[in-house]
């Protein structure tokens, strides 16, 4: 429904902060400090009325497209703009973008829909209504031109922001008729283009947000500066569930720049100073006494015990059942059993958590990098103790999200709780890397025991997968569970839907024994498909080996009912040359998966030298996301997901001791570097008819394909991640 209410949201009140420090230095940061401000993600600053919620066109034909979801590197800003522009028929070279604020979204009956940016939903979750938004604006612009010319709309054509009256050849541009269009009622119905007529969707156009990232101009949350702003550094009790007992502020009160030392909630203390470095220096010197609480004895070993017990327990939730797996396994000619384990991991976004807040008795404003502006607004209002209508959140560009900045706004709440103690003063809270490492919402921990049975022909007759471990939803969003079951735990193993298993197993039982240690879990890039694909795809390889069959042929026999998954698997096998020998010393491994509605597969090529050093030479990856909005950005996402997934495979592990995460920084929580990066051969093969995700699905296949290749190279079946804990020298 288009909203005819005229809300003046194109008025922008920006304060410009200029820091001058000697000749030749000046830096302007544009900050919207007014309640009605809309933060420009591009550099639009027009005062013209919007055509509709999605489109503003300036007299000079600049097109400003509003983007509700957050750009955090995944390219959604550009992809969503392509969707709107396709229907709008505007000149792409004149397109800019901006973020509406979450407060405006609420005030306008959520005209922009959801702001949540996660689950690879940016494009697939909003393509329909954003394309409609573009089409409606186009119709209004044509109608305005037709009215001015006093001709029927049907006689007008439009392309590249130019409207032509076909019979007379008269032309006008969007910029000239936009003001008149804004006065019109939107059409009730619009027809969307047939995908075969798309001209912009499907094109590898360049991102709209690159240039400022090359010069240091791009402002991230951590970079904000405002007049009169103070800086805060924080420390929360490192033990999960612990509390702040006391702190001795006399010891640091006189240190340079220090303004205040404040309690933040019941578990943290912050130093507020003129600069962040001063705040952090004083915080390091602050004596703090913690009440470590009930989890002080929790360790990796104690959590392991919980999970082991879950592997054997009588009770478990069922995620997928067909036939009778128990009977099939008892009757099998050969059975194979293996137990796998996947650890806790931090998101480790390059930009640590941060938020800037200004609180007064009747207003609270927050500037922050967030994957969900509306959730950030909710968190801000709660912490501020103010009605949501008196609060606003301005989304600032994110230095990475990966799930950390979507469901959790602990950093926003802290910033507001600090700002509340300095009414009227903007305070920027920035976490240290150490704080970020110890106060994550971690990739959950699980183990899995798999038992598979083969018949005399070596075909799979039964499979039992018992997962034991942590549920994200039980901790984060119990409302999304059904009867206590967290179906999200079964990502990639479900009977149908976006995360369906890619095989037909005649007798299948997939279960989850939920065991929730007191370490906060969270959504993560891919999340549960990461380990579920390792469990299933490694084990399928184990079964193929036990059956004496080629891993590709073994999989194919189970995939007759999964033609799209089979197609991506075949594509990688063909491109990698599966049926031909690999170069000497190089070994291959396969993996396939359906995740976030996309079908993905990978073939990894690795070598392992006598010293056990692994080299990943190349990964051929295929993805069928249904529709491919921007193929070059899909390639970038596939490569990026491999870096995240392979970093997890090689190094990613948070261990627990005394109820705290033991890792502190990138020295003990490493991430892969360019010298470990394989060549990535991306096959984008959209088959149409559905909309699948892009940012996450391929992460699932990187690790199992590499693990299977390592087995081919060494004969070692690795069932523990990360690899840094395993000696890869051949058995």
């Amino acid at each position, binding site marked *: 429904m288009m909203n005819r209410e005229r809300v003046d949201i194109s008025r922008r009140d920006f304060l410009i902060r200029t820091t001058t420090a000697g000749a030749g*230095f000046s830096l302007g940061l544009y900050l919207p400090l007014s309640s009605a401000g809309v933060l420009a993600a591009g550099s639009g600053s027009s005062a013209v009325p919007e055509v509709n919620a999605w489109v503003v066109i300036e007299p000079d034909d600049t097109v400003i497209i509003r983007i509700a979801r957050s750009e955090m590197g995944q390219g959604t800003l550009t992809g969503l703009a392509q969707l709107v522009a396709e229907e709008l028929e505007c000149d792409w070279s004149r397109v800019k973008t901006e973020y509406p604020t979450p407060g405006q979204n609420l005030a306008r009956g959520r005209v922009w829909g959801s702001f949540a940016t996660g689950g690879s939903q940016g494009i697939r979750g909003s393509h329909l209504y954003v394309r409609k938004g573009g089409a409606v604006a186009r119709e209004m612009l044509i109608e305005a031109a037709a009215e001015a010319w006093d001709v029927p709309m049907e006689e007008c054509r439009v392309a590249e922001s130019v409207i032509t009256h076909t019979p007379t050849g008269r032309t006008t541009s969007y910029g000239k008729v936009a003001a008149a269009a804004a006065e019109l009622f939107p059409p009730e119905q619009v027809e969307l283009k047939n995908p075969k007529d798309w001209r912009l969707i499907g094109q590898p156009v360049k991102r709209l*947000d*690159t240039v400022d990232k090359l*010069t240091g101009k791009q402002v991230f949350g951590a970079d904000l500066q405002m007049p009169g702003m103070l800086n805060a550094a924080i420390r929360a009790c490192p033990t999960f569930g612990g509390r702040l007992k006391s702190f001795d502020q006399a010891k640091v009160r006189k240190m340079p720049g220090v303004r205040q030392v404040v309690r933040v909630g019941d578990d943290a203390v912050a130093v507020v100073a003129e600069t962040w470095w001063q705040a952090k220096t004083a915080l390091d010197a602050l004596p703090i006494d913690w009440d470590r609480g009930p989890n002080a004895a929790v360790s990796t070993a104690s959590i392991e015990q919980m999970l082991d017990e879950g592997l054997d327990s009588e009770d478990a939730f069922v995620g997928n059942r067909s036939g009778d797996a128990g009977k099939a396994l008892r009757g099998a000619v050969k059975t194979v059993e293996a137990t796998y384990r996947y650890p806790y991991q931090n998101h480790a976004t390059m930009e640590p958590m941060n938020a800037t807040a200004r609180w007064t008795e009747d207003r609270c404003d927050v500037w922050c990098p967030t994957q969900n502006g509306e959730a950030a607004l909710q968190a801000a209002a709660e912490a501020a103790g103010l009605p949501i209508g008196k609060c606003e959140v301005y989304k600032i560009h994110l230095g990475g999200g990966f799930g950390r900045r979507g469901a959790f706004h602990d950093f926003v709440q802290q910033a507001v709780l600090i700002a509340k103690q300095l009414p009227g003063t903007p305070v920027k809270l920035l976490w240290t*890397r150490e704080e970020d490492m110890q106060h994550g919402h971690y990739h959950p921990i699980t183990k899995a025991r798999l038992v598979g049975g083969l018949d005399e022909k070596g075909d799979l007759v039964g499979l039992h997968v018992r997962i034991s471990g942590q549920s994200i939803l039980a901790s984060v969003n119990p409302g999304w569970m059904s009867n206590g079951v967290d179906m999200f735990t079964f990502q990639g193993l479900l009977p149908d839907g976006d995360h369906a298993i890619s095989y037909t197993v005649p007798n299948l039982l997939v279960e989850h024994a939920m065991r929730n240690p007191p370490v906060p879990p969270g959504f993560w890039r891919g999340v549960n498909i990461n380990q579920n694909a390792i469990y299933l795809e490694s084990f399928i390889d184990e079964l193929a080996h036990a059956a004496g069959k080629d891993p590709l042929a073994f999989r194919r026999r189970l995939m007759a009912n999964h033609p799209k998954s089979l197609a991506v698997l075949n594509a990688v096998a063909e491109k990698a040359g599966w049926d031909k020998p690999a170069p000497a010393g190089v070994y291959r491994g396969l993996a396939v998966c359906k995740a976030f509605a996309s079908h993905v597969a990978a073939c990894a090529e690795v070598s392992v030298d006598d010293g056990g050093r692994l080299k990943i030479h190349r990964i051929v990856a295929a993805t069928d996301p249904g529709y491919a909005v921007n193929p070059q*950005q899909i390639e970038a996402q596939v490569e990026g997901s491999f870096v995240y997934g392979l970093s997890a495979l090689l190094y990613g592990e948070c261990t627990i001791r005394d109820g705290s995460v033991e890792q502190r920084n990138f*020295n003990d929580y490493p*991430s892969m*570097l*360019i010298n470990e990066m394989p060549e990535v051969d991306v096959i984008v093969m959209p088959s149409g008819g559905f909309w699948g995700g892009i940012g996450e699905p391929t992460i699932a296949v990187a690790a199992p394909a590499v693990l299977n290749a390592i087995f081919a190279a060494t004969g070692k079946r690795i069932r523990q991640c990360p690899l840094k804990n395993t000696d890869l020298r051949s058995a």
Partner: protein
Amino acid sequence: MAKLKINGNMLEIDVDGTTPLLWVLREQLGLTGTKYSCGIGVCGSCTVHVDGEAVRACILPVSALKPSQEITTIEGLSADGTHPLQQAWEELDVPQCGYCQPGMIMSAAALLNENPSPSDADIDAKVNNICRCGTFNRVRRGIHLAAQIHKGASKRERS
């Protein structure tokens, strides 16, 4: 008081000498293109040049710098954003979130300063910045492309 030459400007800055260069740049001078991520010299987000060489500003106290040393930040890499690396990065759409990119570009620029046509092995050895978004393959292509752009430009200058 520290006396520093930054992006060609001689500056006197009222700051405790133990403060790392990173925070002087970001907080005293408003040069926020240089990023904080680890603060322990591991990730490379804070990479700047001192006399053309890559250094990690988060572990470099300003007291260790002499006024004669030329400090260059991402803001001073080129006057107008047209350093060959910036051109190549734009051409290949290298950045994702972009947070690591100023450091990545400064590391690559230092490499090109000493080696105008680096091999893959040279890149592996010298560009050891963390990028959690995973831009490595485009970074590699970007460095090779920048080397070509640079070569083309110097050829044009000579002729």
